[in-house]
């Protein structure tokens, strides 16, 4: 059965060009980039190039790029660095729809005596700017906001907040794990101090990611050890992963236009058809200000896992709006924060596209989904025909 993969906000396929670039470093060029022998030196040079490519995607300087192992590590490292740089400040500002990498980390810090303001979003997933600005104080060490939301794709006004943060001398970090490669990112223009991105969301392999740290920022390592990454991240470098990420950033840069046109059109087509063909369905998040590849759509009176498994029978991969794989049974905290009614929150599906998706694939989904929803509604005690 052909797989229709529309779960690209969860993870992406490794681009064949990326794998090709990696393979030599998984076979003959296995040297340690820190080694003295020229065998290791070759690898070191390839890493220099990868660093340049990554920096070009976000308009950073190469030595502002620190390679890490995942978006979660980048987020952890950014928070750690901000607090170490401001040991006397005890307040952090974030939103209430952040990824667990930020959310859970900050919740632990609350237990250690930090105060965290979780700025709420409205029913469209938009940040309450008023609360955000009013919560900024002399005691604020860090503002961390995701550039775009992984579930709804809603984009936050990063540049605007970064400017305000700078005015008040507050460090600003953005989790751009979902934004990178989908919309243009320019760290200089946006004025952010730190930024996270993760390789496996942009067709690089899992196990490699980036923390951008603005030049001049006093950075304390999260992962302490050897002198790798100029002493900013200990641990032998994931050479093949890093080299793959370099190539993936090249490709992502080349594909930004396509994201904004082809991919957006496919998403809009899928959205329009599903809304039309399936009654009592609704889109989550501000439609006009979303990532071009993301569609979060709720179907009343049915439950997400069941929808996913029936779609799976037809080869369609997507995500649900619940966090049930984690053992939690509530709708995701993002949908709860947006006050999406339980009625549709439990039945929310996220489709997230990539440049590999086609119109035929959208048509397949559009054919498969309406009878799936009908079948589940027919057995739902909450469905009022």
């Amino acid at each position: 059965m052909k797989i229709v993969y529309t779960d690209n906000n969860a993870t992406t396929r490794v681009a064949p060009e990326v794998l090709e670039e990696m393979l030599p470093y998984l076979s003959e060029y296995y040297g340690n980039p820190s080694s003295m022998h020229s065998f290791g030196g070759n690898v070191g040079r390839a890493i220099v190039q990868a660093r340049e490519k990554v920096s070009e995607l976000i308009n950073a300087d190469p030595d502002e790029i620190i390679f890490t192992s995942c978006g979660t590590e980048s987020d952890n490292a950014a928070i750690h660095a901000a607090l170490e740089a401001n040991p006397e400040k005890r307040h952090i500002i974030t939103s209430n729809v952040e990824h667990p990498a930020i959310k859970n980390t900050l919740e632990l810090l609350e237990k250690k005596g930090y105060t965290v303001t979780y700025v709420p979003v409205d029913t469209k997933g938009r940040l309450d700017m008023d609360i955000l600005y009013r919560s900024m104080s002399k005691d604020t060490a860090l503002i961390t906001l995701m550039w775009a939301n992984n579930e709804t794709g809603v984009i936050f006004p990063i540049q605007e907040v970064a400017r305000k943060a700078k005015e008040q001398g507050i460090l600003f970090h953005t989790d751009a794990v979902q934004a990178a490669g989908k919309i243009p990112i320019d760290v200089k223009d946006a004025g952010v101090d730190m930024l996270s991105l993760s390789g496996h969301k942009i067709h690089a392999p899992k196990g490699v990611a980036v923390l951008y740290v603005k030049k001049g920022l006093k950075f304390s390592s999260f992962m302490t050890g050897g002198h790798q990454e100029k002493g900013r991240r200990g641990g032998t470098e994931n050479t093949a992963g890093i080299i793959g990420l370099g190539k993936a950033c090249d490709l992502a840069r080349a594909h930004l236009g396509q994201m904004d046109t082809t991919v957006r059109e496919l998403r809009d087509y899928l959205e329009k058809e599903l809304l039309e063909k399936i009654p009592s369905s609704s889109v989550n998040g501000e439609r006009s200000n979303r990532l071009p590849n993301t569609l979060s759509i709720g179907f009343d009176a049915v439950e997400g896992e069941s929808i996913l498994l029936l779609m799976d029978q037809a080869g369609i991969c997507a995500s649900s709006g619940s966090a049930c794989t984690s053992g939690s049974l509530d709708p995701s905290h993002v949908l709860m924060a947006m006050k999406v009614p339980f009625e549709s929150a439990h039945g929310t599906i996220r489709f997230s596209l990539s440049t590999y998706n086609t119109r035929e694939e959208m048509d397949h989904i559009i054919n498969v989904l309406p009878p799936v929803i009908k079948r589940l509604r027919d057995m739902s005690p909450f469905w009022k025909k």
Partner: protein
Amino acid sequence: MWEYSNKVKDHFLNPRNVGAMENPDAVGETGSLSCGDALKLFLKINGNDRITDASFMTFGCASAVASSSALTEMVKGISLDDALKLTNDDIADYLDGLPKEKMHCSVMGQDALRKAINAYRGIQIMEKPGNVVCECFGVTDLEIISAVKENHLKSAEDVTCYLKAGGGCGNCLERIEEIVEEARAKA
């Protein structure tokens, strides 16, 4: 994906006895929209207190559907007294097991069945014995204690798997852990 048994998959993909029943003799409802799963069980009962037919409507995940489907198959033809002896473990066994995180689906089946039979017999069960511990899912301390004993639960995590309690905001987890420890100490 949850690693479901073939039986679970079969009962999810081809659920038996789906749909509302016309003129049922007994109805049992459990769960709610906000909880993420709910089951409405319909029974036909003959003069000998024997269940002659059963059907269900379910809102929930694959294992909720499969548990409901299995339940209706299991109760057809047995006496009400035997039906009352059915436990959630029996439902899970019938399905060749459920992932631990999904055991609450079988609990839901047991619950709806007992409610239906008790209602049929005119027995009033106090809706919620004990004090509510988990606000998110409205679960009480007595419910937790009895689940710990019946299902040999060992931790708050286990309780969440069986009763969902603790699976929402998580505020009640510490209290649940205490209750589990007490109940285990006494057992």
